[in-house]
């Protein structure tokens, strides 16, 4: 399945999806040394987003979150790519400076179709994502 998306941070990435249904603050919700979600209220608590395509609806929290994405990249535990329902400044700027491809706004109904474990290809240069599911 191929979907048109809006490109926020350019580049290409692919990997297995990890999906959070809740908004995410990189400051506080994620361990910047390991990429593991440490927010116990999260629906993906204890799982790692390192090297994955991180799918979540929107960001929240302090602008320092921007620098957390950069730290994760330097520590080798950043997500390979990010798909959001609706982007905002903190995650967007963090993804750009850390060079993590970020896209948002796939057609609303399609966003909810992405499941953890799907294989996702992001092409943020051309503005599309492709989802493969192994059934």
């Amino acid at each position: 399945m191929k979907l048109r998306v809006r490109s926020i941070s350019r580049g290409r990435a692919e990997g297995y999806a990890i999906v959070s249904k809740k908004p995410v603050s990189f400051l506080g919700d994620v361990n910047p040394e390991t990429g593991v979600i440490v927010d116990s209220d999260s629906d993906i608590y204890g799982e790692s987003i390192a090297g994955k395509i991180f799918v979540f609806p929107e960001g929240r929290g302090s602008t320092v979150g921007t620098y957390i994405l950069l730290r994760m990249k330097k520590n080798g535990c950043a997500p390979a790519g990010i798909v959001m329902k609706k982007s905002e400044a903190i995650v967007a700027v963090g993804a750009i400076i850390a060079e993590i491809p970020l896209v948002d706004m796939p057609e609303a109904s399609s966003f909810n179709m992405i499941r953890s474990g799907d294989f996702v290809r992001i092409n943020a240069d051309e503005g599309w994502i492709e989802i493969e599911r192994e059934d």
Partner: protein
Amino acid sequence: MYLTKDEEMLLESENETVRKCMEILVALGEIYGAERLVEIKSAQISGISYGNIGDAGLEWLESLNARVAVKSYVNPAGMDIEKWREMGIGKEFYEKQMMVLSALKRLGVEMTLTCTPYYIDTPSYGDHLAWAESSAVIYANSVIGARTNRESGISALAAAIVGKTPMYGLHLKENRAPEIRVIVRGIEPAYAGYEVGKLVGASIPFVEFDRTLSKDELKAFGAALAASGGAGMFHVKGQTPEWEDFDILAEKIEVEPDVELGGCEPDLIAIGCPHLSPDELKEVYTLLERHGRVKREVWLFTSRSVMNEYAELVEKIRGFGVRVFADTCMVVSPASERFECVMVNSGKAFEYLPKLRGVKAIFGSVEECIRRAAE
């Protein structure tokens, strides 16, 4: 968002820094629905205290390779760059902080190290800016009538390098209209801002005071408002330049004295958040002459440029046992952390000292602060 041919070329630039900065501006423009970019007169970059950005921020700044396209300033750092030892700052922090500053200097940013850049270079009514320090943003929009969004340190730096910012939010007149009307009676403006901010959040208030405020009082009111709330602008009836440009709201809320000041015994009295103006320095001096030498630790904060211009006055103030620092403030410096209770005349510091530095804060007017200091 519409981009000119030249702007599109920046997105393809071979200079990675320029390309990334342009990408940041375009992303923000897309997210917030800007139609185009607008040229800015100046930029002011926040988030430069090493205590806040850490090694990740430092390495990123050091990786940049470009020059700013417009006049660009920086916010206070984590220490006075000359009297850092006197503040109790360690050598490692000093060295890292100086590395942050030299990375920015290399980009052509001026080392103003102040939250009051408008005392150095005042923008004009209608100028578009990309400023990041919340108290400077709210002053520029409200008191001067210039136009800037609340930028992050990184978006302000991107705007500085490109010389433009996406035109959305407070850059557009229709978004500068008041959203809530507030009546303030019998409260010190610096503290009123703290109360009103908690009440209105990020909405733009139209405020009616029971007297005319000085520009310094408007500064203190706005700084506290932007700290406890999230507004980038306010209007004051009869005073601020755009108060008559919009319909006056019928519904109003009243704020009256209900002052919970906290009861700790101050081991530090800190004044100058935002940085003191020349008039405020003179006021402190007059009060010191009346009350005499201080018996507690008292720290004043101002910009290096005001300190240099009023060097004689600063020396006289020091003669009363007061320490005067530049380049930093009690909110961004780790130096405040070794005290238990800080007395402040600033609603902004009153909001942030417990949250950012883990110390208790109590509030008093400048006069109350100086009187307490001499007791």
